[in-house]
């Protein structure tokens, strides 16, 4: 009897482990399936050159996704990432000397100063998000929706429908150059991923992020300054977005309105497809990396096989839906367990 109980306990424990890892396994399986599918479907897909391509393509999204991971782990959302990126990219170009044919009333300053001003701009926008969410108490969904519009407004005012091309040298080095054949922008992404992972996993701040996301009330009753943590996450997210915007502008070679419009969805999708819980507390940069790869492989792979380019949009939407279903399904498994326990 005792033995039997012990063995059933062990069996249920290992199945419990598997179920608790579903969140991590499902996105990884998706990635493998996509890789296998595209490798078979297109001979040009599985090449080193293309791998480097994919890495470059996900870089701007990836840097935003690092910041967004912090916010989503807290159980909040930031809808202003793409807009803040766009505004910051335009700010850095606004403070850089442009060619004579660019008709923008800009203020050229030294390159380093332009970068500092741009960083100040995205930090400021992040602080506004943080203030609105934590001090005033506006839900982050609404607050950052407003910020999305504010960012677009800043972009519009600064460039007035024109296009700027030049950015400070340091930004163009990071965004649009190669080191030994390896794209620098991908190195920037890797640096952000590493820094994000280290912060979330090995620092006190990172632990607080998980705790606030896991049970906000409990964090508060443990003396954690929940508002400070939430605010910090929103500022980190805005700064990541701003840097993504700067290197993105350099990468694309121009700064203009609505340049990053598709990136909001991609960044959120990368975090969520990777398995980070939209309810907070579960997931991390590891998940975001997998999510980024799924998105990057999907976008890139669909270009390699001959497929109606309008259908591509629908397919991306369906894959995102599937990932969300898995995300919520796994969440349900856990809440059932909690109810039983």
């Amino acid at each position, binding site marked *: 009897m005792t033995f*039997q*109980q012990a063995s*059933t*306990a062990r069996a*249920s424990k290992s199945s419990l482990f598997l179920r608790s890892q579903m969140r991590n396994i499902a996105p990884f399986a998706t990635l493998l399936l996509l890789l296998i599918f595209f490798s078979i479907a297109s001979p040009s897909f599985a090449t080193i050159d293309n791998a480097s391509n994919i890495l470059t393509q996900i870089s701007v999204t990836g840097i935003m996704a690092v910041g967004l991971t912090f916010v989503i782990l807290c159980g909040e959302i930031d809808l202003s990432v793409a807009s803040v990126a766009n505004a910051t990219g335009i700010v850095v170009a606004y403070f850089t000397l442009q060619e004579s044919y660019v008709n923008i009333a800009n203020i050229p300053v030294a390159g380093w100063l332009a970068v500092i001003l741009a960083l100040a701009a995205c930090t400021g926008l992040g602080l506004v998000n943080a203030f609105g969410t934590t001090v005033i108490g506006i839900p982050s969904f609404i607050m950052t929706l407003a910020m999305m519009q504010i960012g677009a407004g800043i972009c519009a005012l600064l460039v007035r429908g024109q296009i700027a091309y030049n950015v400070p040298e340091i930004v163009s080095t990071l965004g649009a150059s190669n080191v030994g054949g390896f794209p620098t922008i991908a190195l920037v992404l890797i640096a952000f991923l590493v820094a994000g992972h280290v912060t979330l996993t*090995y*620092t*006190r*701040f*990172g*632990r*607080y992020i*998980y*705790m606030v996301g*896991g*049970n906000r*009330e*409990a*964090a*508060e*009753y*443990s*003396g*954690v*300054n929940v*508002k*400070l943590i939430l605010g910090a996450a929103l500022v980190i997210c805005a700064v990541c977005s701003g840097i993504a915007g700067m290197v993105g502008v350099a990468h694309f070679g121009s700064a203009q309105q609505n340049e990053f419009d598709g990136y909001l969805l991609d960044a959120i999708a990368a975090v969520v497809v990777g398995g980070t819980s939209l309810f907070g*507390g*579960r997931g991390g940069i590891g998940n975001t990396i997998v999510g980024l790869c799924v998105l990057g492989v999907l976008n890139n792979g669909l270009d390699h096989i001959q497929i109606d380019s309008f259908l591509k949009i629908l397919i991306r939407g369906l894959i995102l839906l599937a990932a969300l279903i898995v995300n919520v399904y796994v969440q349900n498994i*856990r809440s059932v*367990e*909690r109810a039983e*326990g």
Partner: protein
Amino acid sequence: MLGISKSFGGVAALREVDFTLRAGEIHGLVGENGAGKSTMMKIIAGVHTGYEGKMLIDGKEVHFRSARDALAAGIGMVHQELSIMPDLTVGENVYLGKQPVTAAGIIDWRTMMTGAHDQLKSLGIDVDPKTRMGDLPIGLQQLIELARVIFSGARIIILDEPTSALSPPEVQLLFNVLKGVRASGRSIVFISHFLDDILSISDTVTVFRNGRLIVTHSVEGIDKGWLIERMIGAGHQDLEESYTGTITLASKPGLPVVLAAENLGFGRAYVDVNFDVKAGEILGIYGFMGCGQIELARTLFGKIKADTGTLAIDGRKRRLRNTTQAHDAGIAFVPENRRSMLFYEQPVYKNVSISILGRISRLWLKPNVERSIARKHVESLSIRPPRAEVALGALSGGNQQKVALAKWLTHRPKVLVLSEPTRGMDVGAKDDVVKIVRALRDEGLAVIVVSAEPETVLSLADRVLVMKKGRIVREFTNETISKDRLLEAA
């Protein structure tokens, strides 16, 4: 019911229980937590569907597949957590899900309101059906939910802990209603931890222990001691005495004041609250549910900001604008609800270390230090399973409560505020908590115990304040008090 057995994941929750409920009786059900009484009732109410054994109603065998099935067969349950709609009117709540409609398919408000009024009146509840439910006191809300269950045609009504949130007059009102229900030939199952209530309302009482039905007996000629003996088995008499007998408060003179509150006030919750608490004493604050003591406890931990008055810690005036400031000022708080202070998906050691993380690490985490601290507590509080890496959600309720306390044991605060520290715990676990809290007091901690259960306050406190409708109305020091005197004061 014959030979009912039910097990969860290999653990037997009920073993071969034969239970009989007669028409027109109020049947009290007692037992410690986990004794099986709730499981039993959930089977009757169709919540648990897989079980062994037979259930007969009026001699006919039934097997419910859902709570809806059970309701259709005339079995209704009023849970401890009310399922009323606070923003709807009383009338709408009474008719929830079966609103009368006119020929045009529009809700017939007039019928609904007069119907609700008449039906409530027939139960002796006099309330305007147009009142918003949430504006009523909790006792009336409960009666209205009960009324809804009765009007839905239930012949067997199961009440789970109906009196835990009620003041004595509200309990009286409930009992009067229940007697009326009994007179109409319906049967009532009354589950409660409050033995006095069980004894005063029930006709028959059944005791559960360890999944077994120990005895069913008429309430004639039995008393609390008789029940308790059967609930917990032999050898615990002394324990019961410390909870319900008279105790003599022994405040020690000359202890330094750690925390002093002056003229504290917060909205309608409490006003003009003055008290102090000294190092090395346990201050009990007793009052009925909703008399402001919960809000007061939250104020002390900076969760609620008082509108008026000041708090001084160690003689220094402090403004606690958030919980972090309270934490840093040396105050620790354990809320009444375990769920609101633990992280279920995280391992035990992260739950323990969260409140002291700032002390053991500045920037980088030191998981090894966290683990070793947690292991010490796991061992000294004999938490099962004895591993700090286990996810908290895998622990039983009692062990979770120990983790909640362990969290503050390392923190070494100056003031420990406990809200309902033993609510819903069985006698053994209560005893553990009492021991831990006393040990903390003896180490020089100032402890504030806030509770609506007289037993909790009596078993812990060295000095007792009684709150009534937001005011402190009575202080007991250096005198002999008992449950009666506490209840009388509140």
